């Protein structure tokens, strides 16, 4: 028994059960965001993968890995996007070290 089931990805629509109108709005927004626009579908899929890894959603990681491949990205490009997201996440932690330095400096002679 585990909390995440691969099959649940295909059951995403079931979340509409109690609030269909909200899910409908979400899906319209979600779908529109991934359409070709000022950014290509391929660029958007790479952003989606980077975000999916960052928010650590296994469903999103599966979905956007497929989406990247089906939009013509290769593993080198996908891994670069994952590194960038991870580095930003690391940087976001590291910058908070300044808070620590500031706190130290405030109480230190």
């Amino acid at each position, binding site marked *: 028994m585990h909390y995440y089931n691969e099959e649940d990805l*295909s059951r995403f629509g079931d979340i509409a059960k109690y609030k269909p109108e909200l899910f409908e709005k979400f899906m319209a927004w979600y779908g529109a965001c991934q359409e070709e626009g000022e950014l290509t579908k*391929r660029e958007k899929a790479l952003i989606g993968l980077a975000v999916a890894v960052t928010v650590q959603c296994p469903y999103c990681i599966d979905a956007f890995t*497929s989406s990247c*491949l*089906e*939009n*013509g990205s*290769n593993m080198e490009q996908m891994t670069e996007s994952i590194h960038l997201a991870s580095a930003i996440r690391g940087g976001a932690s590291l910058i908070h070290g300044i808070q620590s330095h500031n706190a130290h400096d405030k109480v230190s002679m």
Partner: protein
Amino acid sequence: MQAGVQIERKGARTFPRSPISFQEKLGPVELRSLAIETLQVNVGKLCNQACKHCHVDASPTRTEIMPREVVDACLQALHEFNIPTLDITGGAPELIPDFRYFVTEARAIRANVIVRHNLTVMHEEGQEELPQFFAENRVEVVSSLPYFNAAKTDSQRGTGVFDKSIEALRRLNDVGFGLENGLTLNLVYNPVGAFLPPDQASIEGDFKRELMARYGISFNSLFTITNMPIARFLDWLRRSGNETHYMSKLVNAFNPATVDGLMCRNLISVDWTGRLSDCDFNQMLDMPLADGLPQTIFDFKLERLSERRIVTADHCFGCTAGAGSSCGGAVAG
């Protein structure tokens, strides 16, 4: 059927397990052929490669090879019914003894000739002059190259295939294939795994840029083809636990806009024994034409085969997913 021609089928006949039948998804539409513009001839299963996704289950150990009398019957049908295009596939068609005879005779009756050439066969003994032969006969060469790097290509087609393919492409460029206003060299992309191909124009741009930058190679067009869930690829889908997911993907991506452009509507397929099918995939699944129609190249009658009802099964989802898939690539924008 001519005496001495052996009718024997050894191909895998396993169908994919689909969550819904193709006919149910298609609805009340009855799929019918239009004019037969292409005679697609699978001359046999012998190949110098054994690719993981091959729907023919072709390999160096296969012995099915089209005999001369079937070749002659194909030429007769091309000539008698003015079929514009002969599309020769295999296996590696160059390995059958009558390959060059077939091509030169077809050109003599002014058929356009497409050869589905795997590139590496050019390195086999006795095949070194293939580029010159193709050029002299103004053959349209269509060659698979699943990706512009060795890792992906070799993973699907065998160790060392990428390097040999690049060398073969250089030789084809050297005799004028793939250049502007030259002879036609088209490449085929198919996914290295259980996913759909990307947008054809987009990935063609990548291939053109990367093959030129890395290897100085040019080509005319890139065709994207979806992996067909039959034969060796279906075996792999099952072994890897991907069949359910892949079939759902194909079904969910069913695109009605692909139906008008399906290749089965404009071609008829001939196997190495002369038997007819609606496409090369049906041929491998041992699916003959609909009942009541001529069943071999020896009793080919154009008027009875045009506008025939096309026989379908659940593997047909492979041709209708996304932008669609055919021997000429995507069929819908």
